[in-house]
């Protein structure tokens, strides 16, 4: 272990550019999954508070199942099951990247749905009533009164989810996606330097997530003061 500095000095010029290149893939996966998760999350949250019982039950069950599965299992199911169940369809577009993004997006959507729902419900009932008594329709009260306030409430949990998502992209390596983790494995075993490479990769992940963590904490402080 104490010759780590020397190992790095010898190899870092070869390793780092390649690792950083695949970090971009990691960021891409995270970004697309994040957007998908928000869309799915909003959709599920609205179903959860819908006045139609069957929609509510469906959303609740769906969320409970997705959240009860480990991400790895979900990724495997999303990527491998549909092509086998429906072989007659054309699956050429369904790359491992796509499967990973859909899997992470579904998982995130289930998590965010709960965040959004409790954000909306945290708002005092009186806000909705005040809006309705002024003659607003339920949709108008949602748009101008509830959503703007709820957004402020859910921002920290959503940001924290994003940080977790960044780390969870490493799981995509297990279904073969070529992102940072996968590339790291390749280099580590090719050059017989697992310790050095994996510690370096850990540092790269840390460099991506720590600034975000700090930013979120700063955000939380700011939001609390303005309350």
């Amino acid at each position, binding site marked *: 272990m104490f010759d780590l500095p020397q190992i790095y000095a010898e190899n870092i010029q070869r390793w780092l550019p390649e690792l950083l290149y695949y970090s971009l893939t990691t960021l891409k996966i995270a970004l697309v999954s994040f957007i998908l998760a928000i869309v799915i999350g909003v959709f599920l949250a609205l179903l959860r508070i819908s006045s139609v019982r069957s929609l509510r039950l469906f959303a609740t069950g769906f969320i409970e199942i997705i*959240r009860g599965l480990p991400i790895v299992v979900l990724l495997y199911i999303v990527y491998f099951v549909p092509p086998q169940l429906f072989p007659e369809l054309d699956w050429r577009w369904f790359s491992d990247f796509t499967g990973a993004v859909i899997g992470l997006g579904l998982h995130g959507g289930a998590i965010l749905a709960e965040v959004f729902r409790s954000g909306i419900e945290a708002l005092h009932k009186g806000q909705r009533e005040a809006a309705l008594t002024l003659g607003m329709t339920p949709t108008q009260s949602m748009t101008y009164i509830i959503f703007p306030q709820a957004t402020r409430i859910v921002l920290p949990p959503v940001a924290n989810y994003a940080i977790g998502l960044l780390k969870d992209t490493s799981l995509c390596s297990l279904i073969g996606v070529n992102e940072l983790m996968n590339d*790291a494995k390749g280099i580590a075993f090719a050059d017989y330097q697992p310790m050095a490479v994996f510690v370096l990769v850990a540092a790269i992940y840390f460099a991506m997530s720590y600034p975000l963590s700090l930013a979120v904490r700063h955000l939380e402080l700011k939001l609390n003061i303005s309350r």
Partner: protein
Amino acid sequence: MGFWQIINEKGWYFLTSLLGGWPATVTVAVGSLVFALFIGLIIALLRLSNWRVLRILSTAYVEIFRGTPALVQLFVIYFGLPDVGLEPSPFQAAIIGLGLNGAAYMSEIYRAGIESIHRGQMEAALTLGMTPIRAMRYVVLPQALRTMLPPITSFAIVLLKDTSLVFAVGVVEIMALTRNLVTETLQSAPIYIMAGLLYLCMTIPLSRFAARLERQRQAWQ
């Protein structure tokens, strides 16, 4: 062969094969939970310590273990340590890896729990002549533990799900057997779905239990 046909003919075989991994899954989950509970408490107490150095070190620990993926941590331990002479078995690597990772999260749960107990309790204990450590042990922690039960249960569920990673360091648990079975039979859909159902059978009841604990805690406050 059709999907339901396969389930009919091979379903039982699949199920028993996968269930063979269940003991390993539970062992890793429980082992890392215990590990995390102990180390997490130590880290939490260090973070609340009066010595700046201890506070900084423990905070660094938490930031690093929470800022890097668990998978990387497992790899460092299982593939990296042999470089320096230590050769953990897959089980050891899994439990230590998930345990150290979990300790970082547990320490936050401990910290929140301890801080949620009113300062006055600590002060009352001190004025009765207890040392800070005694006050912690007999007054603050017992109360904190009660409020921490729901988050600890939730955390345990997360650990259970994280066991699905450890096949990557060679532990033969449910996910490892799942992948082997798929390679063997080429029937990915029913097997992966079955694996999913196995996990759901564990996590859903536990989640409902945790939710009930949370409701009880709300009522108790």
